């Protein structure tokens, strides 16, 4: 294979890489994207089979360490109470995500100014607003205008069905006078851009066989490929290389056969998520960058943020039809989103009402909790819970702390012998207090909705879904890794676009903001093409 120099090389075909590739494709530049996973086949997703509930414990599991897929790389997360969740494929983690699609709020971009913690972003809500709108069209976002927790926003598709479960819980929020609203969801509730509409299958978190969920393999990628972007699958990048002027000049990667290749490029864009991106940067050592490329600040890998999650569940007398409808998208409450110092913590959290679980999930969760015994009394206990459980997760805002970080594991490597990432993370006191608050208030609202018994758990040990902050954005090269439009301070043709560049985490799912940032950075590149490297 001849090493042709391409104009733009994107590493990673997930949420950010897809949006980036599509937006840049109208320049007619030669764009190549390298993705370590392959295309998914929706006909093989678990919801097409009778064992659909069990495969979340197998090849569609959340953790790459237990999934057994060859495209995964191991992650040493034994030093964190929250395990990493991701997926490696065209579409990245959007294959498994719930498609819960909220925006950040205006206040989320200025937490230092408003609350005296963390840092303000170098951009604001108004800057990203047009890109949120553009992204809503491309991803197909369903929702209802008028949410009083946000500035006015219009969404292109009608909201997801709340169902009996959603209506029941909405009644609880109304009894307490708390905020709630139908979730913004990247789900085609009506046919959209060639995608079939949602038919309420339920298990969105193991891929959408209907193609209604907005994973980027069915949204941005088909459009980007039509416009000439070359997407090479099963290609795992080992390192970014630099020339004598300290500019990125390409990458070294392994192809599907494990053969080492080189791809040269004028511009390199890294879109590998909040763990994969610092891993690649730290693995890219050279004379100019002995501690990893773009890491003169020493901040690559630091300030890792999750969203600490709690789960609150209640059992009701009536059946709720909770297994019908998008698993993670129903209604949201942001009653406790904004800071109230009287609560004993800064910043806040969102509640996301989740759907109920299926027959097998009910049995296994009841077995592990001891609520559904084996032997005598089994059927009575099972029927008292099946389709009668409802609840929510609380998604808490994490704050950036330098000791929470991604480094390279000294021993663990992937199948190409590339050093694997290691996670060091401690839950902050602020997060602990927030979790206590949301678990207590969550049980109150479930009781108000009619639950006769409630339980709460937090932090959820498996819920490292959102990976942020490890190559933060800022105007000061000593205090950030990329500038206010995503370019590495240290390398003028290297861009980073994913959750890594988040300054703070907000208390909402990050994918919409990751993609809005990608579209914004892409536009910033296009506007500066004549003098991009100055």
């Amino acid at each position, binding site marked *: 294979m001849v090493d042709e120099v391409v104009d733009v090389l994107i590493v990673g075909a997930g949420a950010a890489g897809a949006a980036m590739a599509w937006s840049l494709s109208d320049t007619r530049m030669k764009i190549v994207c390298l993705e370590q996973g392959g295309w998914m086949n929706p006909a093989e*997703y678990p919801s097409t089979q009778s064992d659909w509930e*069990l495969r979340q414990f197998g090849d569609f599991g959340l953790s790459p360490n237990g999934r057994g897929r060859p495209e995964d790389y191991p992650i040493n997360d034994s030093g964190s109470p929250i395990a990493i969740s991701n997926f490696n494929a065209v579409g990245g983690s959007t294959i498994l995500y719930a498609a819960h699609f909220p925006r950040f709020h205006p206040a989320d971009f200025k937490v230092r100014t*408003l609350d005296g913690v963390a840092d303000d972003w170098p951009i604001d809500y108004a800057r990203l607003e047009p890109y949120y709108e553009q992204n809503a069209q491309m991803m197909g976002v369903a929702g209802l205008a008028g949410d009083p927790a946000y500035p006015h926003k219009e969404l292109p598709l009608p909201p997801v069905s709340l169902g009996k479960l959603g209506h029941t819980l909405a009644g609880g929020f109304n009894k307490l006078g708390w905020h709630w609203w139908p979730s913004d969801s990247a789900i085609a509730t009506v046919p959209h851009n060639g995608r079939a509409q949602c038919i309420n299958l339920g298990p969105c978190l193991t891929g959408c066989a209907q193609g209604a969920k907005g994973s980027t393999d069915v949204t941005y990628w088909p459009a980007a490929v039509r416009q000439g972007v070359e997407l090479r699958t099963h290609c795992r990048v080992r390192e970014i290389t630099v020339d004598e002027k300290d500019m990125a000049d390409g990458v070294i990667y392994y192809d599907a056969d494990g053969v080492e290749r080189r791809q040269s490029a004028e511009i390199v864009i890294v879109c590998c998520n909040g763990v994969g991106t610092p891993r690649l940067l730290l693995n890219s050592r050279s004379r100019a960058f002995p501690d990893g490329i773009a890491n003169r600040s020493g901040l690559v890998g630091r300030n890792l943020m999750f969203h600490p999650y709690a789960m609150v569940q209640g059992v009701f007398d009536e059946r709720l039809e909770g297994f*019908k409808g998008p698993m993670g998208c129903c209604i949201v409450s942001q009653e406790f989103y904004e800071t109230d110092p009287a609560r004993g913590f800064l910043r806040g959290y969102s509640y996301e009402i989740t759907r109920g679980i299926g027959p097998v999930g*009910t049995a296994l969760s009841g077995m592990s909790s001891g609520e559904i015994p084996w032997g005598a009394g089994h059927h009575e206990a099972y029927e008292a819970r099946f389709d009668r459980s409802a609840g929510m997760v609380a998604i808490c805002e994490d704050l950036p702390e330098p000791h929470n970080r991604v480094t390279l594991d000294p021993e663990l490597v992937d199948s190409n012998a590339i050093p694997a990432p290691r996670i060091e993370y401690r839950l902050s006191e602020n997060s602990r207090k927030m979790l206590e608050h949301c678990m207590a208030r969550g049980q109150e609202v479930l009781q108000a909705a009619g639950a006769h018994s409630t339980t709460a758990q937090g932090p959820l040990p498996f819920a490292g879904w959102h990976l942020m902050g490890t190559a933060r954005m800022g105007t000061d090269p000593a205090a950030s890794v990329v500038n206010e439009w995503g370019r590495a301070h240290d390398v003028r043709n290297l861009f980073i676009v994913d959750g890594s560049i988040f300054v703070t985490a907000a208390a909402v799912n990050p994918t919409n903001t990751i993609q809005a940032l990608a579209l914004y950075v892409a536009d910033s590149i296009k506007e500066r093409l004549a003098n991009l490297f100055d």
Partner: protein
Amino acid sequence: MSQAANDSGFSEAQERALACVLDEIIPPSEDGRFPGAGELGLVSYVRKQALDLVPMIAQGLTSLDELALARGAADFATLPRSERRGVLEELAAREAGFLPLLLFHTFSGYYQQPPVLEALGLEARPPFPEGHEIEPNDHSLLDPVRARGPVYRF
């Protein structure tokens, strides 16, 4: 166990014993709506799911027979039903992996079976391609939320 294992990895006696164990884990319901896990034929499901662990299960079944023998029965399958749970618990205290393994596969296999799903009032099919109908949204429930006005900071 003196009998030779067949193609399933279990002897016929072991298959009978395993069916009895599965019926102890999920017995038939008193109202007759739900069958027991053993009579539902979950032995082959468990064997398929735990293929690598068949020798361990077989060893556990042998131990159950030995415990039944000590109580005066010929084997576990002929032990009075009132005594089977006690024997299973005795074995669980001695061999930690046997019972949890069978509980997991019995619980997960049982609730995939068409007769069980139908008894729960469900259609016995995977979610795709039919999906599910859901009642229409009642957005009038949002009136009190709207009436509060904005709840965010600029």
